[in-house]
């Protein structure tokens, strides 16, 4: 009884402390209830979820050959399994130690499972699509852009003027161009800069363009991390007789990356969202599938169902990525602590 009373008092304190507050709170509550009622009424009576259930394989795997669906299926399940392991935190230290390696190999593994080779029949990249392609674009671009971004950040701090200036120009120019332009011109221009006769598919071109773009942003985040490390750390390395290269790799960079981790995670989530731009540049990733489903006369006008589904998937994936990044860092430091 006393507990209930203090709850009411608490509610009064946080939302009804004076007249203006009370009016605002009442308005919010009524809007909230109306929205909830309208939404649930729509969900139950008006929504037609067959557009989702019929097209589910399309949303997940694109137009991947039917008899080979286990390949993208396995790859996506591995994502779920890896995430679970990372978040729960395994007891065995060997598994914890190899978590980072597991995630790094996830992108290349996907390329192998989708494209085929060594024992698997090959599947053209035109047939890749849906959630599978979204995750593939994200993971591959992330893996390539991290080292490039770190190199650019170190380049921008270099004492060699030519390295410093080239890195700065690259970073600043890339950061001033809209992503869609980089992707569009990536599709058009990358073939023009390749030797005559050499052709690469649209997915690779997209990954190259994403890598070139994202690495400029990662470079600035890493540079922020580098600048946050006190000069005395460098001195402490110097008086121990370490080589400048060793000081950078063993002392400065590990600390800088840890500082930059939250913003790097934001970049990764941003990358995931931005892969949706490929939907208007000729790839049928998640949003692309949504567009093609909505263009099908059978499902015309089912915008809200499809958009809600897509928003939910992007939201869950993004939240999951942030969670994984946080837990991965914890697991890796834990590993050192009980050495």
């Amino acid at each position, binding site marked *: 009884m006393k507990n209930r009373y203090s709850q009411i008092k608490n509610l009064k304190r946080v939302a009804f402390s004076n007249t203006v507050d009370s009016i605002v709170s009442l308005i919010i509550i009524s809007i909230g209830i109306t929205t909830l009622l309208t939404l649930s009424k729509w969900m139950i009576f008006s929504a037609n979820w067959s557009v989702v259930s019929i097209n589910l394989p399309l949303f997940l795997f694109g137009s991947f050959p039917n008899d080979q669906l286990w390949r993208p299926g396995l790859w996506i399940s591995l994502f779920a399994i890896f995430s679970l392991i990372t978040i729960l935190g395994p007891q065995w230290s060997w598994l914890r130690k190899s978590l980072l390696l597991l995630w790094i190999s996830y992108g290349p593994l996907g390329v192998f499972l989708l494209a085929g080779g060594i024992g698997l029949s090959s599947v053209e990249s035109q047939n890749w699509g849906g959630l599978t392609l979204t995750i593939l674009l994200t993971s591959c671009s992330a893996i390539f852009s991290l080292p490039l971004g770190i190199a650019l950040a170190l380049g921008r701090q270099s004492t060699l003027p030519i390295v410093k200036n080239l890195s700065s120009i690259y970073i600043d120019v890339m950061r001033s161009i809209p992503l869609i332009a980089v992707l569009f011109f990536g599709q058009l221009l990358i073939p023009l800069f390749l030797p005559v006769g050499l052709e690469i598919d649209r997915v690779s071109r997209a990954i190259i363009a994403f890598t070139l773009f994202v690495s400029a942003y990662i470079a600035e985040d890493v540079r922020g991390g580098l600048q946050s490390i006190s000069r005395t750390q460098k*001195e402490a390395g*110097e008086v*121990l007789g370490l080589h400048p290269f060793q000081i950078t790799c063993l002392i400065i960079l590990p600390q800088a990356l840890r500082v930059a981790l939250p913003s790097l995670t934001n970049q990764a989530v941003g990358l995931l969202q931005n892969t949706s731009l490929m939907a208007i540049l000729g790839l049928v990733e998640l949003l692309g599938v949504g567009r093609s489903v909505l263009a099908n006369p059978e499902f015309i006008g089912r915008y809200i169902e499809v958009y809600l589904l897509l928003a939910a998937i992007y939201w869950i994936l993004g939240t999951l990525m942030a969670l994984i990044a946080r837990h991965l860092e914890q697991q890796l430091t834990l590993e050192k*602590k009980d050495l």
Partner: protein
Amino acid sequence: MPPIIKATKLTKSYSKGIFALDNISISVEPGEVLVVMGPSGSGKSTLIRTFNGLETFDSGQLNVLGIPLESQNNEERNIRRIRKRVGMVFQQFNLFPHLSILDNITLAPIKVQKRKKMEAEQNALSLLSQMGIASHAKKYPSQLSGGEQQRVAIARALALKPELLLFDEPTSALDPERVNEVLDAMRRLAEQGMSMVVVTHEINFAKEVGDRILFMDSGKVIETSTPDIFFLNAKHERSRKFLNQIKNK
């Protein structure tokens, strides 16, 4: 035996007319403990930081462990040769926060002296127990008190088996009750015959452990005396004034 450090007419100025080092000549003999004292901004830190190439100087000659250091543009390899043989302990400890205590100590032996990991770790553990903190080997710097961190820093410097140790105000950042545990460790090192240059304000340490006191002000050496003379009967007015000030603190 030749002196460990031989400095002749070292001069350095940050801006015109203001000298960090003003015509300093000094030598440190093997096994000697030289205590450098003086008010803040007197150039003490600058002086010992030139001894391992963290600071450059404008003119004069400097020779550390038989290796000459030029005033400018030293070859990096030369400086590293000195640093491998000269340890340094900083005021703010400067441990590597992302490495465990053990890794902090074994990093340089493994990466610079290319010693085996097992051997380096055994050596690190024996150094830690010398410092009385062997039980902390697997912890991280942030889990230790200031005094413990500073003793780790000393162990880290010792791990390279240096021929000279430089201390830059090693107890100034510590809580008063933690000062003695660090000074005791330094005292034991001196008893073992380690050559040391110590910048400090600790009068008792200087009296008991110091072989010579070097008193600096405005970049100049005001006087060099044995502790007995310096603390009881300082030759210079400025030295006496300084001693009064820190005694009254």
